[in-house]
Structure formats: structure tokens, C-alpha cells
């Protein structure tokens, strides 16, 4: 089982400035799953509790000179603490900028190793970051779990395939930051959020308790997938009635999720996605964030699913 690659400057920027801060909000521990073409960060895919997040990178988006080999069709997966990974990456960046002669002079190599830590008789696996300066090299070891077994990797791959079914209708959320602000304030009022998404391009979120109903409706959002024209007779109705009628007509779906999870998904604005889409499939809200400003279209996508959890 071998893995060795050089992180490109763009790859370092993507991870350090955008994706790791966002993924850290999804949960401290995640799976890092590497195969011949992709590096994938996965949250809660196997235990199914809480928000599931998939951030998939084509290898070219992060690495050059990417070498991977294992007896399991060149697939390697393990768990890693995102904050440690982020810290190692950040200090490597500061070493490069402080001592380097420009970005190309310093190459940041990332490698899977087994080392004998002090006071231990068992060698343990690490992800090693090696920054070569002009006269020195800095090596940082990020502890990781034992690599997942063949059966576990298969389970991860199956969960990954299953989670990537797109909802029939996705709406584009225009301002994640603003929505997050709003949802953060809603959290004081209740725990469960009803999310309704219609083919007309409506996103309707609502908290309802015995004492209060609080909600927000965003209309005329960009729709991907199945869409329909909003019936004109619905125009003057309240958001609640409009949603209920759309559901009856089969033009909308509704699901109840935890406000906390929904708020977490909005934290993905930290990854500065170019656009964000929300949809409902099989009783989970699916949020898809696309960052396409990088060299090739759709090189990167964070894919989040969260249900009642």
C-alpha cells in the first residue's frame, strides 16, 4: 500500500483557504478516500448519523506526480482529523512563504508512512508532509487511522455511489451567507426545520412549535432538473398555503431536518462555492456546492446529504 504525491500550489490554496475550513465545520473527523482518479473527503457516510458530506477532488485539482498503489484496486481509505490536517498544511504554507524562493522552489510532498512513535512498540500510520527549503526540510506527521479493510472500503464506495443520486429538482440558493445568518437566528426558536422545495423555484423553510411559527420563503430561484410554472392563482397566498398546495399537486417535496444540520450545511459558504443548489431526494435534503472557477469545470464538488439524524 503506497501513496505519494506533490500538492500543487493551487491544491494547497484550495484546501487551506477554502475546503478544509468548510469541512472542519461538518465534523472534526472524516474519511479520506484515495483512488486512481480522486481524493475524497467523506463525513458520516458509514455511521449515517447527522450530516453527510462528500467533497470530491479530481487528482489534478490538488496534486501532480500522483502515485497510488494498493492490492485493493489502488484504493486507500483512512480516517483523519481535519483540524490536524489543516494545521499541518498551514504551517507548510508559512514555511514555503518564509524561506522559499517562490512557490515552485518548494514542493510540498504528501506521503503515507508507517513510523514507530516514541514510547511505542507498534509502528503507526501517518500522513507525512515534507516541505523542502533551500537548506532544510520540514517534516510533519499527521496521525491517521489504520487503513480501512477491503470490506470497509467497499462499504464506503457503495455508500458514496448511493449518496450521489441527484434530486429531481434542485434550486440555487443565491446568498448562502445571508441564509446562514437567518438560520442561525432561527435556532433560538426551535430545533426542527421543515424544508420545502418546489419545481417553481421556491425554497421554503419553517420552524413550527406550539408557541411560534417562523419561516422564510425564497421564490423564483434558478431551477435545475424538473421545473414547472407556478400557478398564477397561488400568487397572493401565504407561503404556507402555497407550499401545501404545491405538495398536493406533486410539484414540491417537503422534509423535516434538524436546524443545526441545515445550518451546518450552509457553512459550506466558507469553501466559497460559485453556486449552491438544494434539493430533496428520498427524505433527505441534498445540497450541492460547485466551485468551477478552477481550471476545469466541475473539478470539485462538495456533496452533502442530511436527513432526520
Amino acid at each position: 500500500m503506497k501513496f505519494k504525491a506533490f500538492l500543487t500550489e493551487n491544491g494547497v490554496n484550495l484546501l487551506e483557504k477554502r475546503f478544509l475550513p468548510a469541512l472542519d465545520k461538518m465534523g472534526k473527523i472524516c474519511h479520506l478516500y484515495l483512488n486512481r482518479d480522486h481524493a475524497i473527503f467523506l463525513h458520516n457516510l458509514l455511521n449515517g448519523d447527522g450530516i453527510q458530506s462528500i467533497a470530491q477532488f479530481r487528482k489534478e485539482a490538488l496534486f501532480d506526480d500522483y502515485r497510488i498503489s494498493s492490492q485493493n484496486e489502488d484504493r486507500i481509505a483512512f480516517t483523519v482529523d481535519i483540524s490536524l490536517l489543516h494545521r499541518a498544511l498551514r504551517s507548510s504554507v508559512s514555511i514555503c512563504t518564509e524561506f522559499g524562493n517562490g512557490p515552485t522552489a518548494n514542493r510540498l510532498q504528501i506521503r503515507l508512512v508507517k513510523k514507530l512513535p516514541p514510547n511505542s512498540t507498534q509502528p503507526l500510520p501517518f500522513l507525512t508532509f515534507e516541505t523542502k527549503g533551500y537548506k532544510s526540510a520540514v517534516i510533519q506527521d499527521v496521525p491517521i487511522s489504520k487503513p480501512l479493510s477491503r470490506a470497509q472500503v467497499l462499504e464506503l464506495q457503495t455508500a458514496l455511489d448511493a449518496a450521489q443520486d441527484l434530486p429531481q429538482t434542485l434550486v440555487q440558493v443565491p446568498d448562502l451567507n445571508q441564509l446562514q445568518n437567518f438560520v442561525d437566528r432561527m435556532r433560538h426558536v426551535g430545533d426542527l426545520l421543515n424544508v420545502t422545495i418546489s419545481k417553481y423555484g421556491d425554497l421554503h423553510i419553517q420552524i413550527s412549535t406550539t408557541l411560534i411559527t417562523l419561516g422564510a420563503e425564497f421564490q423564483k430561484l434558478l431551477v435545475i432538473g424538473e421545473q414547472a410554472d407556478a400557478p398564477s392563482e397561488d400568487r397572493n397566498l401565504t407561503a404556507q398555503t402555497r407550499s401545501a398546495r404545491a405538495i398536493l399537486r406533486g410539484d414540491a417535496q417537503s422534509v423535516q431536518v434538524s436546524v443545526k444540520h441545515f445550518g451546518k450545511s450552509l457553512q459550506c459558504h466558507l469553501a466559497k462555492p460559485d453556486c449552491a443548489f438544494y434539493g430533496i431526494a428520498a427524505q433527505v435534503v441534498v445540497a450541492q456546492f460547485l466551485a468551477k472557477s478552477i481550471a476545469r469545470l466541475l473539478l470539485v464538488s462538495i456533496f452533502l446529504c442530511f436527513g432526520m439524524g
Partner: protein
Amino acid sequence: MNSSSLAEEAPDLVCQIDNAQGMVDALTTVRWKRQQDAVVELSEHGVVLIVEETGCLQAKVYLQRELFTRYEYNGQGRPRFGISLGLFVDCLNTFSVPGQSTILEIRYPGPDMQLLLKSVDSLDACIYAEIRTRIPDTVSWDYNFEPAGSTPLTFTVKSAALKEAIDDLEWPGSSIQISLQPVPSTVTFRGEGHGDLQIDLMYYVNTDLLVAFHCDRQVSYRYKYKFLRATTSNIPSSVIKDNRGSKLTIGRGGLLKVQHLVSVARPSTSHPRIDSAGYQQPSRIAYIEFFVKPEEDEDTANG
């Protein structure tokens, strides 16, 4: 749609406000604990919210009709309803997104006697809320504030200084004595408990701190610290920043009235009519009043 809404009676109140944050600030000032029931009273002059604690402390927030950009009152005989203050404030807070001005419409009653709120300034996005109201409790004690004599016993102190003084008095503990004496004109806060702490505000020394002072005889009353603290503990930071004055008056029997002014004006960037000195139209101010009863066993302290 229109025919059915015509058939319904006009609601008691439909009003709009362009600064939800100002309203949040004003109401937060009287939110001294998590679970608090409030009574709201509507009239042609505005909205009054009243909160009370164990017959010893009462607070009122006056939101006059001038604070609202629209105010349509159709009620009969001052309708009143009970509401959870915490829920009301948390709910209003969701309407106040930083960096964005929202016009908020408030309507009472809804079909099920709810208080209805919604944002009305955007066609494609709408925030709405319905808050359940209760039949109000009868106000247990009428805080009939009467002047103590022919001359009012009153002083006005910078809000930040008042808050700081009361915060400092936490250390000695449960009971705080407030004394006013005419010569030399001084206000004294004194706490005795785990130790003694005395704070003197001297009008003749520092008129920046103590802005106004009226007193023709020496008086002294004791108040429970926790009630005194409630009068300043939740003053919004905007009031501390404005640092106008808070006015304290001692009425008959030692009843203490504390008044704060909370600005409900929109942020100055959008209102050029506010001049550089920070002057805001007086009509855009919400008045907050606290009434604190003195401790009863201290009658002997007054001469």
C-alpha cells in the same frame, strides 16, 4: 381573495417598522431573565410592553406610533395580550439581518389571536412569523408613580457610568442604598455585605457624568441589588455607545423610576437628516421605564 378579506374585520393593529434591530434593542433592555411573560397593550398612541417580577420590579417599553413608518389602529379600548418576551425578541431578531434593511409588518390579531409578523420589502423573499398570544395576567400591582414632594427628586447620569456603577456594586451584595443630598449635591450608591463599597457621584465636581440633579432634601432608600441590576444589565451596546443619559427619579415611598432612551432610528448611513453630532429625531426614540420598589424594612433610614 379581496372579497373574503373585506368580509373580515380590520385587525386592531397593522404597523410597519423599518428598523427591526432598534425594536430588538428596546425590548432586550427589559429582558432580565430567560423565561419572561410580557403584556402588550395597543392604543392609538403606540405599543406598550410591560414585564414584571414578583411585585417588586416592573418595566415598560414605549414604542410610540412615530417610531413606525405606518401605524393603523382600529382597536377598541386598548386591546391587551400576553406573549413570551424571549420568543418575541428571538423572533424579531431573525428579521434583522446585518447589513440589510428589512421593513417589518406587525399585525394583531391573526385568525387565531396570534401576533403576525412578516417582511414586506422584497417580492421574491419573505420572512414571516406567527406568535401565539395568551390572555394577559392582571397586573398584580399598579406602579402608581407619584412625586415625593413639591420638587422632584431626580438625577440624570450617563448610561454607561450608571451601568458600570451598578455592575461594580455586585461585589458587596444583596442590598444597595441610594442616597441623594442637596448640599453638596451628591448621589451615593452604597452596598454593604461581604464588604462595603460606596460610589459617590458629585454633581458639583463632574457635570459630564452626572448631567442633571434636582434634590431639595436628603433622602435614602435601599433596593435589592438583583432588581437594581435588572435595570441596566441588558442595556444594548448601542445605548452605551450613544451614552445619552439615564434618568433616575425617587417617588413617594421610595419607588425608584429608571428611564432609558433607546434609538430606533435606522443606521445613519441611510438617513442623511441625522447630523454629524449624532442628533436623531426625538420621535425615533423608544422610552424604557423601570420601577423598583424599595426594601420595606428601611423606613427608619429616612429622615
